[in-house]
């Protein structure tokens, strides 16, 4: 049984919520005046009582976006996943159907898992060849001001995008859990946030191009000059000094964007994985203050 459902359809030429249902612990706020009035978009804020997800919560959401509509689903603050009781897991799932020529912008604040938290998130998107999707999925290392860095027990996030007749277009699952051979904190090195951004569809083509340009420029700057000379005798103490000063890690961000690759679809042209260092502050030179603001700014510009 789902805890929330929203249907958006075109009514008198405007994207309109025609069905909205939610029950504890989920609540939707659908304010009218968020964006400029000339922009036809429904803004939905999803919130949970208590500002976070308690151990054992199971929130499942359904979203239907009719042809030609635009919807933005976001949150008011980071999704906090509190400490787990026993082996109970907190779960959130979203199933979204994006109609022809419509757009879903899913730009929540990052997930923050407290120490020992267990969290599982699954988002499934069903799209058509001309649907548009902006998806941001990100997680911070935890309450790192309190010294909790990658201290949760289990985090699993699945994002699957299917075309009509269940053709897989994009399948991604990230699993971060304690108890592997390499400790989780070591696996994430000094990074405090990981984020994934998916830009899909014909309406986002200009943004895909722009992000690719930005990344190309940034990477050229990062990796210019002679490749790292390898010194087998290099001691670990020297690597902390100097050697890293121009380091990639210090520049807070790395990206990978496969070029428009799934040619017959003309679909996903941009998949961006951002790794931001010093997550709490989210200082990203080329992005405004959060990835989604960057995305939105581009949307408005476009």
């Amino acid at each position, binding site marked *: 049984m789902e805890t929330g459902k929203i249907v958006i359809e075109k009514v008198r030429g405007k994207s309109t919520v025609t069905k909205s249902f939610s029950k504890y612990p989920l609540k939707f706020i659908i304010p009218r005046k968020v964006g400029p009035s000339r922009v036809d978009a429904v803004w939905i804020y999803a919130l949970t009582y208590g500002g976070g997800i308690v151990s054992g919560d199971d929130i499942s959401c359904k979203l239907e976006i009719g042809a030609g509509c635009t919807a933005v689903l976001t949150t008011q603050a980071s999704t906090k996943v509190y400490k787990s009781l026993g082996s109970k897991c907190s779960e959130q799932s979203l199933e979204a159907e994006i109609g022809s020529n419509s757009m879903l912008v899913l730009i929540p604040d990052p997930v923050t898992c407290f120490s020992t938290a267990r969290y599982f998130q699954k988002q499934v998107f069903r799209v058509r060849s001309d649907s548009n999707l902006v998806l941001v999925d990100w997680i911070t290392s935890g309450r790192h001001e309190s010294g909790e860095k990658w201290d949760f027990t289990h985090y699993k996030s699945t994002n699957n995008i299917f075309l009509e007749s269940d053709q*897989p277009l*994009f399948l991604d699952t990230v699993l*971060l859990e304690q108890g592997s*051979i390499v400790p989780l904190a070591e696996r994430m090195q000094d990074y405090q946030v*990981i984020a994934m951004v998916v830009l899909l569809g014909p309406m986002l083509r200009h943004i895909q191009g722009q992000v690719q340009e930005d990344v190309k420029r940034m990477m050229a700057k990062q990796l210019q000059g002679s490749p790292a000379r390898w010194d087998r005798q290099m001691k670990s103490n020297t690597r902390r000094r100097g050697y890293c000063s121009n*380091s990639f890690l210090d520049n807070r961000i*790395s*990206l*990978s964007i496969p070029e428009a690759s799934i040619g017959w679809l003309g679909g996903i042209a941009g998949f961006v994985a951002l790794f931001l260092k010093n997550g709490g502050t989210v200082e990203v030179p080329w992005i405004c203050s959060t990835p989604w603001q960057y995305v939105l700014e581009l949307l408005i510009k476009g």
Partner: protein
Amino acid sequence: MEIDMERNNNRKRPASTDLPLQWSQWQLLDSILPTGGFAHSSGLEAAIQTRVITGPEDLHTFVVHVLENTGSLLLPFVYTASKSPSADTLCKLDRMLDAMLTNEVGRKASVAQGSALMRVAASVFSEIPLLKTMRDNFLSSGAVSFHHAPIFGLVCGLLGFESETSQRAFMFITLRDVISAATRLNIVGPLGAAALQHQIAHDAEAITEKWSNRGVEEACQTVPLLDTVQGCHGYLFSRLFCS
């Protein structure tokens, strides 16, 4: 006298059909098999140039990361393909993996190695005519992009390997290829590399055990940092490897 008799018996046998399996097994894992694995560094070259690896001591960790991610993401594909080595299964797995490898560098590397392995296997293991017919069919229909992990599982399955062996073998060649790349990038010497390979074998076995015999719906990325770093490979100013 006995030896002579055995030789005579051997001569009467038809070629290759009842050859002990190990000959095919070792050949499949031998680095001389021209599958192009040595053109790939599994992101090692990018990790060095982006200074994710800053000293020889980081190499050990990096290799274990590669193995961990290979185990969680690709081993389920090897397992499923080796369990039911058929054209239908391969088709399904190949399409799924194509959607899962979201980093373009990694995806291209997987296709390149898989295609090469299929080509080699189809002409080397001629006692299994199915390999050749499958390859020809897929090449003409274009239904499959020949991703490495399912092709490896398929070949192992058709050769008659146990699925445990197939999965451990896949981890072995992954380890072998990264270590070989490290040698050629001059991070370790050949002797040091061999020692490191043996040292990591314990971790590799533990990872194999953890991720073996799982269905593809469980496949996931466990070291996302690695995926991102590998994605940078295309931006490197100078490079030795394809991925």
